[in-house]
């Protein structure tokens, strides 16, 4: 059997003829719609693909994308970034986190600023890289500032599993893992409560495929059933997104409201049950998790179970970590953008006071943020 090449993973999914073919079918299907529809892509990865590949340029005017809150960096409230900053400044401590997180400003500055001032802040590609850092620095405490949605949670729990099994004494955790379905409910409820006008309504969801690789598609089952919103779980390549849009339109035109999977090549109904078991072993849902711009969302974040409190930096350092809530910059409308109530270019400081080099809001910081996507790709048309 021929060896699988990396090219095979995406090649056909960027094929110009296929993209144009889907564009034609979508345009035909869209003519049959009785009203314009708003599709929320929950995940920042989808937002970036949509903008990077210029997909709105291929779509009719009655299809509107609403950008959702699915970016681990964007949703991190300032108080938790302050936690990371304070922990990074401790003597004999190395703070480890993933990629973009080091750029987000807290009230003291970003982790990048802390690093420039002398704090030992490192980013890793995989949480498991923390093991090497801890091994090379036995006299230091290594704190892993864990972030991300369902996609990165299993990697953190794998690290915890190894730390416990190998009795590693110098790795600790600050847990900031959040989950998608709860915030989707929050978005529907808050919109329905305040402004469920025709323009602001979320008519359907594009579900991120990588989340469902872990959780299975089952996590979205309640949205068509209880909230009357179809969900199509889609990959991140342009062909995936175009096919998913067509699937959503067909549901509307055929009077269906269902959970469908476009990304059948890896997503099953049940997902990765081994990863799920590991999460259940170490984590439980926190009663509330504060999302930047969205406020406290019930049961939307994980915390370490009490029996693992000896690994929990939030517990160990509770006397030095502030608990007060912090307001965002008053001109920043990241909250509305994360709710999908406003587009980035409706913000008065977009592209002026707030740019990727000098971000005031987290949606501009993260490479997956909606503002960064608009700034980078969206200023042509």
């Amino acid at each position: 059997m021929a060896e699988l090449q990396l090219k095979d993973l995406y090649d056909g999914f960027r094929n110009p003829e296929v993209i144009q073919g889907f564009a034609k079918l979508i345009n035909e299907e869209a003519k049959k719609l009785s009203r314009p529809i708003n599709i929320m892509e929950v995940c920042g990865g989808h937002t970036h693909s949509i903008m990077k590949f210029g997909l709105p340029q291929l779509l009719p005017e009655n299809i509107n994308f609403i950008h959702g809150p699915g970016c681990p960096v964007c949703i991190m409230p300032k108080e938790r970034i302050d936690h990371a900053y304070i922990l990074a400044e401790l003597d004999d401590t190395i703070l480890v986190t993933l990629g973009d997180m080091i750029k987000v400003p807290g009230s003291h500055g970003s982790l990048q600023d802390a690093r420039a001032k002398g704090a030992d802040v490192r980013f890793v590609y995989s949480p498991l890289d923390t093991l090497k850092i801890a091994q090379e620095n036995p006299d230091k405490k290594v704190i892993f500032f864990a972030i991300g949605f369902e996609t990165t949670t299993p990697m953190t729990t794998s690290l915890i599993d190894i730390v416990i099994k190998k009795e590693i004494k110098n790795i600790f955790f600050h847990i900031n893992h959040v989950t998608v379905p709860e915030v989707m409910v929050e978005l529907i409820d808050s919109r329905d409560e305040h402004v469920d006008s025709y323009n602001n309504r979320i008519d359907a969801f594009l579900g991120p495929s990588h989340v469902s690789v872990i959780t299975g598609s089952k996590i979205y089952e309640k949205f068509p059933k209880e909230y009357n919103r179809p969900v199509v779980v889609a990959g991140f390549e342009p062909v995936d997104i175009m096919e998913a849009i067509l699937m959503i339109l067909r549901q509307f035109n055929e009077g269906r409201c269902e959970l469908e999977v476009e990304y059948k090549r890896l997503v099953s109904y049940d997902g990765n049950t081994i990863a799920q078991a590991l999460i259940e072993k170490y984590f439980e849902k926190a009663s509330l998790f504060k999302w930047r711009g969205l406020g406290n969302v019930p049961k939307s974040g994980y915390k370490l179970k009490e029996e693992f409190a000896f690994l929990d930096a939030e517990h160990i350092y509770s006397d030095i970590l502030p608990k007060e809530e912090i307001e965002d910059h008053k001109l920043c409308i990241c909250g509305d953008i994360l709710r999908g109530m406003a587009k980035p270019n409706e913000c008065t400081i977009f592209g002026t006071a707030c740019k990727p080099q000098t971000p005031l809001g987290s949606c501009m910081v993260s490479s997956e943020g909606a503002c960064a996507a608009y700034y980078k790709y969206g200023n042509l048309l």
Partner: protein
Amino acid sequence: MNKQITLAMGNGGEENNELISKIFYKAFKNEILEKSEDAAVIHGGELAFSTDSFTVSPLFFEGADIGKLAICGTCNDLAMMGAKPKYLTCSVIIEEGFSTRELEKIVRSMKKELEINGAIVVSGDTKVVPRGSVDKIFINTTGIGTIIKKGISSNNISTDDVILVSRDIGRHGATIFAAREGIELSSTLESDCASLIEQVEALLEADVCVTAMRDATRGGVSAVLNEWAKQSDICIEVEEESIPVSQEVYGICEMLGFEALNLANEGTFVLAVKKEDAQKALEILHSFENSKNAVKIANVSQQYKQKVILLSSYGTKRFLDAPTGELLPRIC
């Protein structure tokens, strides 16, 4: 500007430009420096003069090492101005405890690469600093070359030109990421690190009308194209599909969320040549192993001045901006 120097300010992109213009250009302001070319053209246009410092981790990587890099980097900067490298200086800062054997290996690489360029090191300096003061070894090279063809400048590109790239892009950046993070690939990925003088000499000897050349180092091809668009007040329209990217580099980009256009190269250059000479330039480049997949990637227009546009094969377009910030892998 940020109150402290950050890593992002050394990225070859926007923050780097801001640091250079607001601090160094402001203080050293003069006509030659402000041209912002790869090498300064001095002595009545007879000589090109350039300097560069090299720090890389790991020091030895697939396809090259810091020594080869230190010679290629400065010699290529001279070559990009149509100059033949002649005399170099070499200054090294070494961390105490560094292995003498590794130093010899690095210097041997430098010697080999000097021979390829026909250049010699005529002056140097050595400093040894306490452990922790530098990361193993830093090398600075400064070079002077004699200009073979006058008038090559990234300030003169017009709609009469087309843009070519000498080979597939992003190899050096991807190799360093893979080496640093222990990403294992089943296929071989190695840095493109190489001297470019032979290709440049061949182009100029054949009288190809070259308007500008630039090796696409830090900031990659997107930084070069954006700098050119601004310096020459033009719009560069890139056919996205024509950009050559190897499967290995694509793989790294897909895994980590990078764009090959932003990744560093050390033996890949971008050329602006007159339209009528484009085919001839490509034929010459194709005769070298190192540039056998050279290709035209863009046209020059006046549509959006000082901007670079990426045109997709399925009919969409977007701006291609210079890279900003540190290159960080995506989170999920």
